[in-house]
């Protein structure tokens, strides 16, 4: 079902608010993986506010849909989503990265309510997601498992081990996304380790493979609908995204993969995000 106008604007406003909260949290933390947090944020928004069957009052509800942030360094964005959803109080984010805080930059499932798996080391999320998808079949539950990988992360061999197994086990209850912002720590993915032809690789590994603008809620929604309609194979949605999306001065610059955030940069970046979303809403 295409997004209604109401849904579209509700999601747009939510994405803006979550970007702003992510910048506040990054400031409280002192520094964060801002670039990749802002590039993945629209994917997180549409999943948690449109598609996923979750209940913040029952984080361990057995029939809930699962989400694995395989690119665990974007934990600052996901923690903001959890706070906004009501898994815990937003003020708890003020301790992010502080000594003895429950929130480190890579989130810990045993401490952070709402989190389905601890991630941070790359190449681990797709295997864990597949385990959850196979467990659903084994236990007769019909939850869906979503995971988001970074594009640089796909250099890891374990991603392709898992990709092969997802197709082999016909994991139609698994949908993966790649946050294809084109940059990893040392520079452009195509210079560090070329991924293209990327979609062809996922197709060859047996995934229904879709490519969309990862900041377009309508396109994301269409892609997820297609993923849910196919039940005999996993789906990969390659999302073309912009690193640091929403902060015009930082967009597409790998130097903002990880950055210190002071009061001034926070305020300027929030102003930029407001302008970006106002323009995006008006499209």
């Amino acid at each position, binding site marked *: 079902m295409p997004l209604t106008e109401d849904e579209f604007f509700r999601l747009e406003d939510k994405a803006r608010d979550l970007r702003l909260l992510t910048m506040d949290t990054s400031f409280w933390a002192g520094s964060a993986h801002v670039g990749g947090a802002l590039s993945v944020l629209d994917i997180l928004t549409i999943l948690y506010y449109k598609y996923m069957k979750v209940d913040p009052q029952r984080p361990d509800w057995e029939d809930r849909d699962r989400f694995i942030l395989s690119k665990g360094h974007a934990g600052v964005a996901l923690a903001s989503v959890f706070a906004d959803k009501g898994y815990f109080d937003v003020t708890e984010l003020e301790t992010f990265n502080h000594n003895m805080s429950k929130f480190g930059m890579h989130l810990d499932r045993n401490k952070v309510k709402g989190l389905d798996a*601890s991630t941070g080391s790359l190449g681990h999320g797709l*295997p864990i997601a597949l385990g959850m998808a196979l467990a659903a079949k084994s236990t007769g539950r019909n939850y869906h498992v979503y995971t988001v990988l970074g594009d640089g992360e796909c250099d890891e061999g374990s991603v392709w*081990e898992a990709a092969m*197994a997802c197709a082999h086990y016909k994991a139609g209850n698994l949908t993966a996304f790649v946050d294809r912002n084109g940059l990893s720590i040392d520079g452009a993915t195509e210079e560090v380790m070329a991924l293209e032809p990327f979609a062809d690789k996922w197709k060859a590994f047996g995934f229904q493979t879709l490519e969309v603008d990862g900041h377009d809620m309508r396109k994301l929604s269409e892609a997820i609908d297609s993923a849910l309609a196919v039940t005999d194979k996993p789906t990969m949605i390659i999302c073309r995204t912009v690193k640091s999306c929403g902060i015009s001065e930082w967009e597409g610059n790998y130097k903002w993969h990880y950055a210190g955030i002071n009061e001034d940069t926070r305020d300027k970046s929030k102003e930029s995000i407001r302008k970006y979303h106002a323009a995006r809403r008006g499209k």
Partner: protein
Amino acid sequence: MAGGVTFNVIDAKDMATTEMYGNALAELAQKHPEIVGLTADLAKSTKIGVLEEKLPGRLYNMGIAEQNMFGVAAGMALSGLVPFVSTFATFASMRAGEQIRTDICYQNLNVKVIATHAGVSFGTAGTTHHCTEDLGIMRTMANLTVVCPADGLETVKALTAAYEHKGPVYIRINRGYDKPVYDSTDYDFELGRAITMHEGSDMTIIACGATVFRAREAAKILEKSDGIHARVLNMHTIKPLDTEAVLKAVKDTRRIITVEDHNIVGGLGSAVADVIASSGMGCAFLKLGIPDTFAPVGLQEDIMAYFGYDDNGILKAARELIGKVFEEKENWEDEV
């Protein structure tokens, strides 16, 4: 029957340790529907394949891809299943070491790793298929229980104990036939509690896995021909280590030998040495095993003899240690 085994112990004597494991797992899985098995194209070699023969659909073959396999096991455990994962010890502990550490131990998940072909039990395969590092690696992983059973029947006991323990467990077993240490499963087995195999107060030989049989044989000869009374401890759980039994051995016997089918760096000997050093008590001490080198090609028995941790090697070490002179004080407390 004790230990959850219903197959006949007479049959069991003709079974390789892995076969006993496969059968025992199938029986455990029959009783507990949340148990699933995973392997990486080693269903036949590790004998986890018995699970699939007896309970079709309960074993997932993940192909030759260990990192993915342990990640999948973590995902399954996060969703209410209890995965038992089997591959060779060398691939479990090293190829997928980070997945065991980060996906399984860090999240404290209920995954049981039964790593086969440990030590030099696949000796003729060469160093790529030996695993003389796993105890050292595994015992540094927080939340993980590390077990090295003495024979096939003890593997069955360990398997049941592992299922009953909530949290990750690593069990290392051998390829092929182990010399039977036990003739039934009718004995008390508790994770983290050493078992005295031979009484003695002149020295203590602390062994695990395939070396328990050899240590007990050596102790019998020492008693008969040398009049040396050696206590033999089956230290089947490397972590948590039975520190009480080690401290008692120091106090009672003041001479300790450890024996393991593993590098002498990092494994049982190192774990015992930690306890001795921290006790502040004087103790003559020898570690037997593979002396920080890669083992040559050969049968397990022969490699054990080559490096001096078979029956004869233990005898030689015991005779050397009994003659060692060191200062002893009546009141140990004064020395701490």
